[in-house]
């Protein structure tokens, strides 16, 4: 009886957005009198930080710092339609809608600035710090604060924009299954290293090295939080979780966190995250949806590592000590 070490690999891809499309999201953007920008949506922030990402997307598009953008969302009386936050679609769908709305608002903003500066709007650029300046002559500039005041009180303009994003729905061909499930795919490759105690069947995940390709890391810190969390969830899925431990039998289902097993902080592997960015053709600044796929590759990587360690295949999830011991026993019996 011994502790045995093994490693396994898995490589995957994952579609961004609702399967087969047909899932619209809309956005509205307007400026306040002092040049802050309000983004109105009905998308839901699940705690992953959608509001922050939408603020950064709007800020980049209009050309202001992110703290000048306020997100008002998840109210059906004020926000335009969003299909919902699921299917790795939030950043991609709502982000595109916000870009379109913000571009329209930016155009009005530049037109008002052009009137104030007595130049052509096409000769203007934003400095990203809250000012609009003449290209090649940055000393000739006006603050966005003053542009907004002018638009509201002098020029009678609404610095606002409407945005929407919809990928037309694809219908699978009945006999061949020809269809367009998605417009872009994220990718991942994970290598997991485990120790398996062949006396108890217990698995310890030592390291998980994840490489994720997600189009564009719009906010690297937030990408990291989602990818690390997903990686932990993958380990939990592989080794611990089930609402019906003897599925298809319905008995012994957990009803609280004492009975429903999940890894605690001490059970989590040393986790490494490496991010590659191949911008997608239709993503906001090339972003794809990393939300779901980041919890997938750890499961087969751990399963393959268990085999590498002790030479038995557990093809049923979760890979419990009981299943490993039964397989080792069957293997020993020949």
């Amino acid at each position: 009886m011994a502790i045995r070490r093994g490693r396994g690999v898995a490589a995957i891809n994952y579609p961004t957005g609702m399967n087969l499309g047909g899932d619209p999201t809309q956005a509205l953007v307007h400026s306040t009198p002092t040049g802050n920008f309000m983004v109105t949506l009905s998308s839901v922030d699940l705690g992953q930080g959608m509001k922050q990402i939408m603020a950064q997307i709007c800020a980049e598009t209009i050309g202001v710092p992110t703290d000048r953008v306020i997100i008002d969302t998840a109210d059906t009386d004020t926000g335009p339609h969003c299909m919902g936050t699921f299917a790795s679609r939030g950043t991609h769908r709502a982000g595109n809608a916000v870009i379109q709305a913000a571009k329209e608002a930016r155009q009005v903003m530049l037109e008002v600035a052009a009137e104030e500066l007595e130049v052509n709007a096409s000769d203007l650029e934003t400095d990203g710090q809250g000012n609009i300046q003449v290209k090649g002559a940055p000393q000739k500039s006006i603050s966005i604060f003053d542009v907004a005041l002018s638009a509201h009180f002098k020029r009678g303009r609404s610095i606002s924009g409407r945005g929407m994003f919809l990928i037309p729905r694809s219908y699978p061909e009945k006999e061949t299954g020809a269809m367009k499930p998605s417009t872009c795919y994220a990718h991942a490759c994970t290598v997991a290293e485990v120790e398996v105690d062949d006396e108890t069947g217990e698995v310890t995940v030592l390291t998980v090295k994840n490489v994720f390709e997600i189009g564009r890391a719009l906010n690297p810190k937030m990408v990291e939080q989602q990818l690390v969390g997903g990686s932990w969830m993958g380990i939990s899925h592989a080794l611990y979780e089930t609402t019906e431990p003897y599925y298809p039998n319905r008995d012994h289902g957990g009803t609280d966190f004492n009975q429903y097993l999940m890894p605690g902080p001490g059970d989590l592997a040393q986790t490494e995250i490496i991010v590659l960015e191949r911008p997608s053709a239709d993503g906001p600044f090339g972003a794809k949806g990393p939300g779901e796929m980041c919890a997938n590759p750890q499961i087969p990587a751990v399963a393959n590592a268990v085999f590498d360690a002790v030479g038995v295949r557990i093809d049923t999830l979760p890979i419990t000590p009981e299943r490993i011991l039964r397989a080792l026993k069957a293997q020993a019996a020949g």
Partner: protein
Amino acid sequence: MELRKDYFADVRKDGLHEIGQPRPRLDSPGHVTGKTAYFADRNFPGMLHLKMVRSPHHHARIRSIDTSEAEKHPGVVRVLTARDVPHNVYTILILIQIGPEDETVLADGKVRWKGEAVVAVLAETERAAQEAAAKVKVDYEVLPAVFDMEEAVKPGAPLVNEYHGQNYYLYDSGECRKVRFGDVEAGFAQADHILEQSYQSSPIEHAPTETTGCVVAPEGNDRFTCYTNTQAMFFTLDNTSIILQMPGSKLHFVGGTVGGGFGGKVDVIVEPIAILGAKLTGRPVSFVYSREEEMQISSPRAAEKVVIKDGVMRDGRIVARKVTGYTDAGAYSRHSPYGAQKGAAHYPGPYTIPNVWIDTYCVYTNRTPSSAMRGFGVTIGDFALEVQMDKLARLIGMDPLEFRFVNAYRDGDMKAHRQPTEGAALIECMQEASRAANWPVAEKYMAMSSYRKGA
């Protein structure tokens, strides 16, 4: 975390002002100091609490329901049964034309899974609602139940859901969603080795910090404001409008920060009945799942069975792949027909295989209806595919990572569902993993690219 900017630098414009910057989240201080408001922070004077009477049986006919004792219980304001619900039989994906309507808001004549909602009790306190729920008498005639997907699709199995008429979802393509590409039998005939394996998962729980729930307030003008943690505001509003036969203009949904979704909050379960309760009593109503309800009543990830048959050549090329996927929907559709169909689109994985045959089934059994969960339709498929890839590599004596390079899809490759591959990056992920994990592969694989010459 490490951002490897050297990959794909030729197709990416960097140096943006706000995008790519690790700005601190504006909502973080609220979260970590307990200032962020969640739906359950709403508390209205006179608010009622809703508790469900649930089926103790997996499958039973309801002979009668007696709510008289419950109604007399101190603090009880109203007891609701199926006949109080204007459009009691519904299905959420009807909004995107995926029918038939197959589920009851409150059981009518039958229960099809253990835990199904039968009677709703509205009372002044949670405790009164709970105690009164225990006094509802339901006379059941227990029926044979089926739990196993293979048993469920056999002739003579107990029929789980009469609205379908058989224990699987009927797509326009028949009993399963199909993908046919090339000639899979010719591929098997040509293969050096054939490997057929079966994989199985079990249901799992989303385990959000915040359980599913809502608080409804009548606005006094025939409008109702529903504070909810749904993941999809209008999807829930529009389904509620159908179930309650109430114009959407009478409904106002307010969300906010949700304490974790993972797909567990895209069913439409708590809102319609809570709004109905508010309408019939004229009082605010709170309906929040207990942790036990979250774990055993709220939809889990579906259990899936995946059978993969592969034909592989000694040089590592997979020449044929046949996949049969089964999704255990439980007693009702919810999002499972969508999930099973998503699986059909996902197989055979990120590999270029000339001959592919996919069948994915959505099967009904007498268990808690499964539904959306992070990656559903794909996650279990990836477990099966990637364990199968490991087995195939070992079968032909190849390194498992190198074996994936041989088969990896690249730009321009035709997928089984007949879309050309665009924006592939699997090869680069594997190259970087090879370096990061110190898992060397042959130089020819490190020299590969997802770009096609001339593509």
